């Protein structure tokens, strides 16, 4: 019972804690792409964490702000919409596998909350419900800009869901299963056997459709600031507004996780299969700890080189010392401990857990890369026009998806 609760809670907490981090990444990333500095003012006794404290300040601001409910709205649905958007975005994580299943005392233990045999369909079903939050918000606000945003979003999501489904079918045909874990295992540990090379068209279609489904630029017409004020969330304020944003980032993380799972081998460590990781667990742990020690030291020394007395003339001068010195010390301690201890001798269970941890870290790295990819695209591409959006969805992606499906079927039959 406790294990089930933990399995549900831990992915949920990981995702929720990634949201403020992604907001920081978006601000900093957009700043660097536009040749600015980005957020760097919010400080707590001189500690700024490179602008990450802005996310904390935002949370405080959004929670304590006055919550305005306009008089002309349809109140039940106006209140329901943000909750619906966030809930739907969060329940999808139930079927995401974070590592290769391990065996504890002969009993299999999976690193996902629910091992459904319809896994990927469950994700699609929940993703298709995401449109309700946006539509309800648009309609219940009783505002023409909001309504237009809601209508746009429903049309867009419906159109791109078809392309997404078609691109998925060909991936499922290659993988031969609907369970995400089996799909990941079938891709193998070598990067050239992953689906982004065996199914390049499907990868392109799925990524494009994922952008459309998350309502991110270049497909963020439901918000369209230049035409619709703020689209479907024009009438929302304080935490309800924030919930729409949290839902958007949760969708981004989910889409990144799906791209990593379906096309980039999920939790597979490049060139290292699960068996290899388990056999070499002792040596692997040794190398991993040593590498982290050295990495901490290098990062700490890099931070310390920034120290200059009287740069700002206040507490901010010492921020690099606050982070740099502990990092160097921790790195030194870790490296010395590892070097003195020598190679580790792990029990079978320990080596399984080691493999799972390494795979989990690899998977998170892949997710973070694709989150960055989403941000990167958002700040580089301009927004589509509405007719271009519909034309791309129905006249380019749908036929491409069908052709890809036919070609995949023929190749699978010939093999």
């Amino acid at each position, binding site marked *: 019972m406790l294990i089930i609760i933990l399995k549900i809670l831990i992915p949920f907490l990981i995702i929720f804690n990634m949201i403020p981090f992604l907001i920081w990444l978006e601000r900093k990333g957009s700043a660097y792409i536009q040749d600015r500095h980005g957020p760097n003012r919010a400080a707590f006794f001189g500690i700024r964490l490179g602008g990450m404290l802005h996310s904390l300040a935002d949370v405080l601001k959004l929670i304590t702000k006055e919550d305005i409910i306009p008089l002309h709205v349809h109140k039940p*649905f106006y209140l329901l919409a943000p909750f619906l958007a966030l809930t739907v975005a969060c329940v999808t994580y139930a079927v995401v596998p974070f590592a290769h299943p391990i065996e504890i005392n002969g009993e299999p233990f999976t690193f996902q909350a629910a091992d*459904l*045999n*319809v896994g990927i*369909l*469950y994700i*699609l*079903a*929940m993703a*298709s*419900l995401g*449109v*309700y939050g946006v*539509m*309800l918000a*648009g*309609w219940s606000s009783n505002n023409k800009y909001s*309504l237009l945003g*809601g*209508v746009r979003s*429903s*049309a867009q*999501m*419906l159109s791109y*869901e078809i392309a997404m489904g078609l691109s998925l079918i060909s991936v499922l045909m290659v993988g031969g299963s*609907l369970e995400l874990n089996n799909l990941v295992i079938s891709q193998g540990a070598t990067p050239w056997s992953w689906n982004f090379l065996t199914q390049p068209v499907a990868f392109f279609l799925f990524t494009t459709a994922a952008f459309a489904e998350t309502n991110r630029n270049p497909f963020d017409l439901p918000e369209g600031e230049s035409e619709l004020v703020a689209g479907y969330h024009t009438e929302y304020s304080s935490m309800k507004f924030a919930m729409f944003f949290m839902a958007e980032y949760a969708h981004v993380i989910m889409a990144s996780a799906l791209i990593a799972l379906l096309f980039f081998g999920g939790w597979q460590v490049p060139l290292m299969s699960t068996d290899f990781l388990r056999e070499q667990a002792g040596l692997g742990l040794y190398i991993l700890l040593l590498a982290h020690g050295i990495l901490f030291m290098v990062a700490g020394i890099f931070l310390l080189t920034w120290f200059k007395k009287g740069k700002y003339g206040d507490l901010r001068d010492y921020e690099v010392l606050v982070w740099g010195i502990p990092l160097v010390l921790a790195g030194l301690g870790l490296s010395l401990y590892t070097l003195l201890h020598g190679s580790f001798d792990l029990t079978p269970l320990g080596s399984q857990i080691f493999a799972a941890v390494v795979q989990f870290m690899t998977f998170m790295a892949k997710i973070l890369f694709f989150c960055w990819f989403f941000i990167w695209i958002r700040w580089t591409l301009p927004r589509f026009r509405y007719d271009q959006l519909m034309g791309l969805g129905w006249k380019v992606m749908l036929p491409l998806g069908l052709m890809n499906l036919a070609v995949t079927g023929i190749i699978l039959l010939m093999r």
Partner: protein
Amino acid sequence: MSETIFFYIFAVISVGMVLLMIFQTNPIVSALYLVFGFFGVAGLYVLLSAPFVAVLQVLVYAGAIMVLFLFVLMLLNLRKEDLVYDRLNWRKIGVGGVAILFLGFLAHHFTRIQIQPFFDLPENFGTPEGVGRLLFTTYLIPFELVSILLLVAIIGAVVLGKRQ
């Protein structure tokens, strides 16, 4: 035991939501209650060990068809005075009488159905693989006929929409 509890929860959700749908004057609110009703039905499918059908129920009906319904309803710019209960007249009373008669007929027959005891389900029952195998072997011809029917419906919609 827990299955019985869950059955009653989902049954109350499906029936209650559909009743709420009927007694609404605003079509958008009605459509949303229907969506909630679909979730109840999907839960019932899961209890009947048919997770595939349950997920398809949510994916197709709640996620696609009802979104289209709402899309059209939102564009229908309804005025407040349209949103009232219809007046009762003799025709409606007649229709209601027939409906109640039919309900009584159904109830009469349902109470006489012999309830089968539990039996072991075949392997693959309700899984995507099992459903797929059935569709493409035993029920291949009906399946293809339904596909053609849908294709005809799509072409018909396009023809109607293209009319100047």
